[in-house]
């Protein structure tokens, strides 16, 4: 590719240096901002081929570049139409190198997950890990 720089280390004049593998390994490999209401739609994303609406508050995100193994790390959060902040619970959770399925549970920040799941206006995911 044009403009390619090959380097193992980045060095600042005073602040020290960092190995470029920290940059590569520490970069999010996939992310998604989804509207999970109505006929669900992706607002923006990276490295996502499609999202499957499995039912109420239950989505599967599929990746274009698969992960190397199923031990990648993910952060999923959501906001409901009433502005309620949620953490995605792992009920009905499944994870493969090419996709991840999650169900949204509500979490108010004061009380714990009330066990219900629901559609959310904003569903966010960020995935970190090694790519295949």
């Amino acid at each position, binding site marked *: *590719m*044009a403009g390619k720089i090959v380097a193992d280390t980045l060095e600042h004049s005073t602040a020290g240096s960092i190995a470029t593998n920290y940059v590569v390994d520490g970069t999010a*490999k996939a992310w998604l901002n989804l509207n999970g*209401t*109505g*006929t*669900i*739609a*992706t607002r*923006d*994303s*990276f*490295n*996502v*081929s*499609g*999202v*499957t*609406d*499995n*039912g*109420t508050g239950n989505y599967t995100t*599929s990746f*274009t*570049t*698969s992960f*190397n*193994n199923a031990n990648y790390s993910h952060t999923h959060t959501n906001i409901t139409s009433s502005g309620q902040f949620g953490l995605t619970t792992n009920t009905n959770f499944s994870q*493969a*190198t*090419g*996709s991840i399925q999650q169900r949204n549970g509500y979490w108010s920040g004061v009380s714990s997950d009330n066990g219900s799941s629901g*559609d959310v206006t904003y569903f966010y995911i960020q995935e970190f890990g090694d*790519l*295949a």
Partner: protein
Amino acid sequence: MQTPSFKGTHLFDRLCWGKENLEGVQSDYRVVYEDSVDECAKILVPDPNWMACALQGGILPPVWVYHELAKDEAQPDFKKHTRGYLLHQTEPVPAMTEEEAIEYLIMKDCPQSVWTNWDSGNKPKMVICKKQQLPQTREWRNSWRISDELAA
């Protein structure tokens, strides 16, 4: 815009080029399918950035590459992928029409048991439709099924 020659370029780098240079394409197509009698119908929604790459051509790998990786992952002793190079070194597919891209996506993201014999039962297991044909509210979402009226 012409796609650069990406032969041997890591797929992630190809997607970075697509993200930087292509406008997302919001497809109106939706794929409704049923893969279990105990579950409601599922709806596959194409990603706009992925669709832009599919229409552009020269970025995405052939769909058979994903099937090969899925076979590897299905092995009981699977720990990590050793054939990830297939994603990066296989010649990318040329530009697709939106309809061809949907067919590709079905074969990538729907269970194989659905798309290999989607029309073999009493009613279709899978339907490609426009999003306007779906219910506009999510009332009783967990009870949605493909209509029996679609049976030939």
